[in-house]
């Protein structure tokens, strides 16, 4: 299971909405071995593509070194699919190179509802896991009110089964 702060999910979805229709990507770092997603780091998509993403290699080295200096590791690696479901593609699976990471996918295909799913990808095997949200989101609410971003997400949908759906209506 991925346990993650609501504010971080909101920041990830906001990043994905901002870069739509290009794919957005990034990392959430946390202390080594803690499995705690603590520090959101949006990354450049060096491909600037609607169907492909790649971390810029120079930015990645800087960020990975910073995590190393802080005794952190990538707890979450996320990217968006902008026209398809948030499920790992064959490309995603072949590149999955961080065995300790939760691979989080966000689909922005629906302008109102962000679909969010999380996976473990080990040795080419994909297994989906539940996402548990914790914490409040006052800052994100406030910034949404202030900026009035018309593309801001209005609801989230987690997972695929009806039991796991969580509608988060803001208005």
């Amino acid at each position, binding site marked *: 299971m991925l346990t993650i702060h609501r504010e971080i999910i909101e920041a990830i979805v906001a990043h994905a909405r901002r870069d739509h229709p290009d794919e957005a990507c990034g990392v959430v770092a946390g202390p080594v071995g803690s499995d705690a997603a603590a520090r959101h780091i949006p990354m450049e998509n060096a*491909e600037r*593509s609607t*169907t492909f*993403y790649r971390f810029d290699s120079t930015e990645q080295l800087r960020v990975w070194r910073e995590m190393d200096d802080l005794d952190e590791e990538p707890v979450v690696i996320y990217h968006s699919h902008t026209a398809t479901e948030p499920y790992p*593609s064959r*490309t995603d*699976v072949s590149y999955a190179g961080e065995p300790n990471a939760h691979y989080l996918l966000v689909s922005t295909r629906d302008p109102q509802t962000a679909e969010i799913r999380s996976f473990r990808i080990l040795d080419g095997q994909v297994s989906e896991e539940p996402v548990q949200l914790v914490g409040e989101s006052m800052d994100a609410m406030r910034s949404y009110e202030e900026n009035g971003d018309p593309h801001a997400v209005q609801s989230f949908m987690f997972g695929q089964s009806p039991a796991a759906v969580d509608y988060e209506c803001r208005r």
Partner: protein
Amino acid sequence: MAIDVRIPTILRSYTGGAKAVSSAGESLAELLTNLDGAYPGLRGRLITPEGGLHRFVNIYVNDEDVRFLGSLDAKISDGDTVTILPAVAGGAFGLAAAAAVLGR
């Protein structure tokens, strides 16, 4: 001549869990051959059967991606740090289609 080599989590099974190892060589190709002598199988995860650098990894000499330094011909000097990271990439496209379109 000692080169500090940083090993990513996914390849530490080859180095007995070590995060960094020491090796030698005057070029990246030489370094990887020496590394494979000490940690058999490691080179095969970095180099394709055709002898090119695998697209699933990034290798850096100090702060520079070796793709900008002549790839396997990149020169290495005593005291340099070589960092290996998994390339982070993917997307909605299938791998074959992406490779065709991107010419990789």
